[in-house]
């Protein structure tokens, strides 16, 4: 199963976990299985049309899936998906 790294802002939606494992052979299948298991992530990951929200970047290992095959990108057992929402946080 592939590993999914969950960013701090999404952790409350997955019970505080930093990493998840999920079944699936593509980026889309894996993210949908995350959303099925943790419904609070659904609106944060996916736009109304079923595509990825534009403010969320997803990387297969270190490469943006948008320059690969997007949600269709094939994912192997030992791959890591990194979910990265935009972050603006200096320390006030």
């Amino acid at each position, binding site marked *: 199963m592939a590993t999914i790294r969950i*960013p*701090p*802002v999404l952790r409350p939606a997955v019970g505080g976990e930093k990493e998840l494992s999920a079944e699936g052979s593509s980026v889309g299948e894996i993210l949908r299985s995350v959303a099925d298991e943790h419904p609070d992530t659904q609106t*944060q990951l996916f736009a109304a049309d079923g595509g990825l*929200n*534009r*403010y*969320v*970047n997803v*990387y297969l290992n*270190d*490469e*943006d899936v948008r*320059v690969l095959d997007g949600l269709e990108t094939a994912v192997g057992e030992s791959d890591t998906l*990194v979910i*990265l*929402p*935009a*972050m*603006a*946080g*200096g*320390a*006030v």
Partner: protein
Amino acid sequence: MSPSGAEVLRQIKSRIDEVDPAVVREQSSNGALIVDVREPEEWGTGHIPGAKHVPKSYLESRIEGAAPDRSQHIVLYCQSGNRSAWAARTLIEDLGYEHVESMTGGFTLWKDRGYDVETPRTLTAEQRDRYSRHLLLPEVGPEGQQKLLDAKVLLLGAGGLGSPAGLYLAAAGVGTLGIVDDDTVDLSNLQRQVIHNSTRVGVPKVDSAEETITELNPDVTVNKYQVRLGPENIMDILPGYDIVVDGLDNFPTRYLLNDASVRLQIPVVSAAILGFEGQLSVFKPYDGPCYRCLFPTPPPAELAPSCGANGVLGVLPGTMGLLQATEVIKLILGQGDPAIGRLLLYDALAATINEVKIRRDPECPICSRHPEAISDEEMGVFPDYDAFCAGAH
């Protein structure tokens, strides 16, 4: 009986080629390599523009660095034309250089003729002492230190990230530090904002930071901007700075900064922190992606926490601010691989740094265009801007 030094010199001069300064002036523009063989103190008082400096005492060991090709046309000069004659003999007879000449009359005659002189800027004795650990590094050295002293870096905020970055950039001798911050020092800042201290609670952060920096390194000029960065002042503040250090805590200003820095072609060393995690990247306009290539739109306000309301481990902005300072110094020196097109992800609890690639977006609404085509009206604007800002406040 051995001949006198003067006799040997006369013999050497009869064997080597000597040239008049007027000829050297033409030759230098025709590709000849002009080499000054005087001592460092003499070089420091002025030299022929474009000349390389190889003191006669290091000639044999250092000339190859300046002139690796032995067929290169080389003109040597000293103060009066004698040491350069000896040096020319060494290059020709001992080291096999094929086309070497010595300038008659030396630098004294050159100056008397009224030809151009370049006076190198040198570090003071105190600066040589203060920056001695930099001077020992080949990647910095006197030239690199001079670049640092000439550099102008703008810190957006004297807070969690700006405090450590500002302290170390000042210590490193970055000659001009601009600081934009409209806030005053609060006791709760001192857990991480190490440029301030307990006696300055209530003092404007720009004043407090200036005091610390001046005490640390009087070489540094501090420009204070006690304002909140916004569309009404960004184009007055940014021009003239070489690099911006960004630790902005909100998206509208983050996009505004991006667009202004692309328009002005100023690199931005950016960091963000949340909880125990930090991100860092260098956005160098047109060399790599910009912030909009990475995040074309911000998240909705409820998913965009700022650090003010959240906890932050005090040392984390220290770590990230110093990574920013390191990137700034690398950019100034032109050394190493800056984090351009890469986003570093630091996890303090796991003690790991991962990175992901950031690609330039060929359709980026800002950096796919010519800098002059970016207008005031579109700077800092993004889709659903009004809704975002309504949700954020």
